């Protein structure tokens, strides 16, 4: 570069460039939207009979903004939770004994069933104010993200490469320094991926949580979810269509403006030996990194973060290390005391639940709940099987064609975000018009949102299938059923199972919404534990809700442990390519 050239650009550099203008406009717009959206959060609770949500299309952007803010608040809460819970679990062996199984169970509990409790709880915290309902909705979204994210961080913290750990220890980094220099960066790619996947699930919850009736109390928060609920009540097809369009735009914006840039940025945190072949790119990140002002403004911020991460914060050594090192016997006694405490607390908790349920319910109720759970189990199993039969061949076909895979995979992820409530009108109309058996025909709703996980992962698996194995199969003229059974299915099994496990968990949750469906003034109901819980929620019958959720949780946990985990372990051991 010539000297003159350098001078010219040096002079011009101080002025913002065109990318700065774009970035600044976007940033300002963001602030305005947040200000407008957050305005309504602390409003007093409207009277129960006042319509909180109008079906006016022009209100949709505002509703969308409110919903988005809720999602963000939940995301922030999930991050705080993740960083404390997972770190504690990874750092302390004794806490790990409690926290990880607990997290495992929490993942299996259909939190949607507990919505009535959380709503009541949060309304009690902020009486007469919308904030309580907001918190309940945010909490519902939180529960759909936090467990997954915490697991991801925990696993990353446990698998920090040994040599990097030794470098950190060798340089005598304090716990704080090590966390921010090594552990957190190492966990970033996994955490972001899991956050993104959880976000799809979050939509399902936000829609369910914005408009909810618990006994006599009906809570309606302005948002896309209550808009859909209002449209369902009014039987307004146009409003449903408008809601679908709005959601599509939001999901797309989320993906393009938030997650793509973050994923592209997080590429540098991947621990790998060589620069990977495919690097994610994002036009938003490109704009931001081409700006001058924004970058200049951001630089001291990054520098500050780095300095904070390098502060010498650590637990002070109260005793010399050789005194701290407990004898094995003492450690074992402490372990026993700790386990005894855990067992005692668990027994007390179980007793509490049983006592609560037993105030109004007796054994026949329990049998009934178990009986209904079998219906839902059957539904989940059959529908998962159907979805597998339909989607695996399609996904394999797509996955083996890179161009198609590239186009379809984001669409599948996109579709997974659409809440099942959008289909209520169609389902109810069909069942009533043709006098169909709801036990059979409502079942499809269970996998409406979750089947896409199978599609998404199977496509990924087929796309990653080694080309030489494909060529070998073709060369030896392996075809037909043999080709499926011996060549492709074992190869995609680990991927398919990842998708199927997610889909199965989601389907149980969805049953609470999908077995008990309302459209205008008509209600269609199937037999199942989901309908049981939904019914109890409508009536505000808390013991029944607890019973229903407890039985469902036990089933889900057993189903996961006895079926999915075994399959997955087998696939990991034998079929990982």
């Amino acid at each position, binding site marked *: 570069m010539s000297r003159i050239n350098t001078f010219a650009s040096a002079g011009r550099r101080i002025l913002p460039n065109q990318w700065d203008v774009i970035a600044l406009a976007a940033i300002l717009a963001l602030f305005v939207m947040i200000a407008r959206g957050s305005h309504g959060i602390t409003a007093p609770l409207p009277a129960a009979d006042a319509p909180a949500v109008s079906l006016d299309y022009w209100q949709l952007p505002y509703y969308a903004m409110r919903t988005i803010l809720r999602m963000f608040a939940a995301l922030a809460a999930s991050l705080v939770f993740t960083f404390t819970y997972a770190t504690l679990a990874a750092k302390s062996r004794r806490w790990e004994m409690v926290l990880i199984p607990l997290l495992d169970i929490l993942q299996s509990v259909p939190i949607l069933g507990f919505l009535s409790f959380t709503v009541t709880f949060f309304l009690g915290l902020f009486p007469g104010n919308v904030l309580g309902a907001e918190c309940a909705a945010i909490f519902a979204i939180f529960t759909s993200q936090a467990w997954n994210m915490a697991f991801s961080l925990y696993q990353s913290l446990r698998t920090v490469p040994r*040599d990097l750990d030794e*470098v950190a*220890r*060798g340089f*005598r980094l304090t716990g704080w320094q090590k966390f921010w*220099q090594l552990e957190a960066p190492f966990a970033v790619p996994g955490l972001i991926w899991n956050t993104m996947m959880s976000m799809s699930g979050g939509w399902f919850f936000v829609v369910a949580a914005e408009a909810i009736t618990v006994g006599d109390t009906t809570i309606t928060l302005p948002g896309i979810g209550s808009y859909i609920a209002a449209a369902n009540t009014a039987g307004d097809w146009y409003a449903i269509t408008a809601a679908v369009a709005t959601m599509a735009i939001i999901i797309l914006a989320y993906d393009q403006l938030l997650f793509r840039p973050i994923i592209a940025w997080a590429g*540098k945190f991947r621990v790998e030996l*060589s620069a990977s072949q495919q690097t994610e790119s994002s036009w938003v990140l490109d704009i931001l990194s081409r700006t001058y002002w924004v970058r200049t403004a951001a630089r001291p911020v990054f520098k500050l973060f780095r300095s904070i991460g390098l502060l*010498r914060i650590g637990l002070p050594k109260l005793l010399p*290390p050789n005194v701290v090192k407990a004898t094995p016997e003492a450690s074992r006694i402490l372990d026993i005391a700790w386990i005894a405490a855990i067992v005692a607390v668990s027994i007390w908790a179980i007793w509490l639940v049983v006592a609560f349920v037993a105030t109004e319910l007796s054994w026949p109720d329990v049998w009934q709940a178990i009986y209904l759970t079998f219906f839902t189990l059957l539904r989940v199993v059959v529908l998962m099987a159907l979805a597998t039969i339909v989607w695996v061949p399609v996904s394999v076909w797509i996955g083996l064609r890179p161009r198609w895979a590239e186009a379809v995979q984001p669409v599948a992820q996109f579709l997974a975000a659409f809440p099942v409530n959008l289909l209520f009108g169609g389902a109810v109309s069909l069942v009533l018009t043709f006098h169909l058996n709801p036990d059979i025909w409502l079942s499809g709703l269970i996998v409406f949102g979750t089947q896409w996980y199978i599609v998404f992962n199977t496509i990924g698996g087929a796309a990653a299938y080694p080309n030489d194995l494909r060529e070998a199969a073709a060369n030896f003229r392996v075809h037909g059923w043999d080709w499926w059974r011996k060549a492709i299915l074992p190869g995609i099994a680990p991927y398919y199972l990842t998708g199927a496990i997610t889909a199965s968990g989601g389907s149980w949750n969805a049953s609470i919404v999908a077995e008990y469906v309302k459209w205008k003034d008509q209600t269609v109901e199937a037999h199942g534990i989901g309908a049981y819980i939904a019914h109890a929620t409508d009536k505000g019958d808390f013991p029944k809700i607890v019973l229903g959720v407890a039985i469902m949780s036990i089933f889900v946990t057993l189903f996961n442990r006895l079926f999915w985990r075994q399959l997955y372990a087998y696939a990991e051991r034998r079929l990982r390519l």
Partner: protein
Amino acid sequence: MLDPSPTNLLDVSHVSQTFAKGSGEPGAPVLQDVSLTLRTGEIVALLGRSGCGKSTLLRIISGLTRPSEGEVTLAGKPVDGPAEGVAMVFQSFALFPWLTVLDNVELGPRAIGVPQDETRKRALKAIDTIGLDGFESAYPKELSGGMRQRVGFARALVVQPQILLMDEPFSALDVLTAETLRTDLLDLWQDGRIPIKSILMVTHNIEEAVLMADRIIVLASNPGRVAAEIAIPLKHPRDRLDPDFRNLVEKIYALMTQRPEPKPVVAESAGAATGLGLALPRVSTNSLAGMLEEIAAPPYNGQADLPHLADSLQLEIDDLFPLGETLQLLKFAEFADADIKLTALGKRFVDMDVDQRKKLFGDEVLANIPLAAHIKRVLDERPSHRAPATRFREELEDYMSEEYAERTLRAIINLARYGELFAYDENAQTFSYENPT
């Protein structure tokens, strides 16, 4: 010098290391009664084969791991945690991929609170010394292996350690790059341009040790212990083709291929009597046959010089020695000083066809490896002719560490499969006679 004991920079006295088994009880020792010293101004190489505990020893010295027994003192002070005054260079480079070269180098000083300007000055100087100018803002991913290891060196130098510890620093690099880095480091060391008092390096490369070190400490395996100490009086720069150099290399080869004496720990136990305490390395049966053929063919005609063989086959001693030892165990070949020689049996094997080879191989495994005979006996005794692998694994763990037991079991499965002695079902983890017919 004010230092009262300027000669002994580092003292390792009677260090033993035992890792607990999965069940909680102590396993077989990884290191046993290791003592060594490091003096100012010398490069010492710890030479040993994989699994001899040399990396563990290095981690004990750096304070990253505590020994089960014994003590390490650094400049007179006992080491009881990550020590000041030592810095380590890793085989895998161990760079933080999200930090630039400069940030990686600055990490050490900044972590202990050295002011930013001072850190920057020292980092740039280290980068300059090690030849990384111009790469300051690159990420490790963008660099070649050699450049990455230079970052590793700069990062270690910048904390101004007294002792530089190196854990096989050149073994992940290609031959040319490794040689350049070795000579660059030696030049810096000879010219006194790096403020380090002493270097302790771990290696499994005999020539590398002779090329760089003033003293070589040879470690024996299972359990790791000091087998010999050899002074290298050659002047720098050393020439690999110099007869004195070659003689030293030969001498060390001969030393490292000596038949292991009966192991002190299990000498009186049942393991030694039944021979179950014999740890087997994992080797490929194809390589075994290939090596026999190579030695049988010209130019070796039945007897090969090990350094020469290693060079022509491009094998590290971690590959070469296990092959040779397995051949010796099966009586197909034997070591003689720094040579390996085919036996009559080995010569017969080379001339056989595939089926005959497998038959002979199977017979030899059964006759010479007690574990194989033991498994076969158990299978014969049981009415079902099946036996779970865990049974044998637990037996092995009485005599060796879990890692060695697992490796030995894998090795015997591999040898038995080739010799068609018995079958192993990976899913059920059981031995049997059932092969698909």
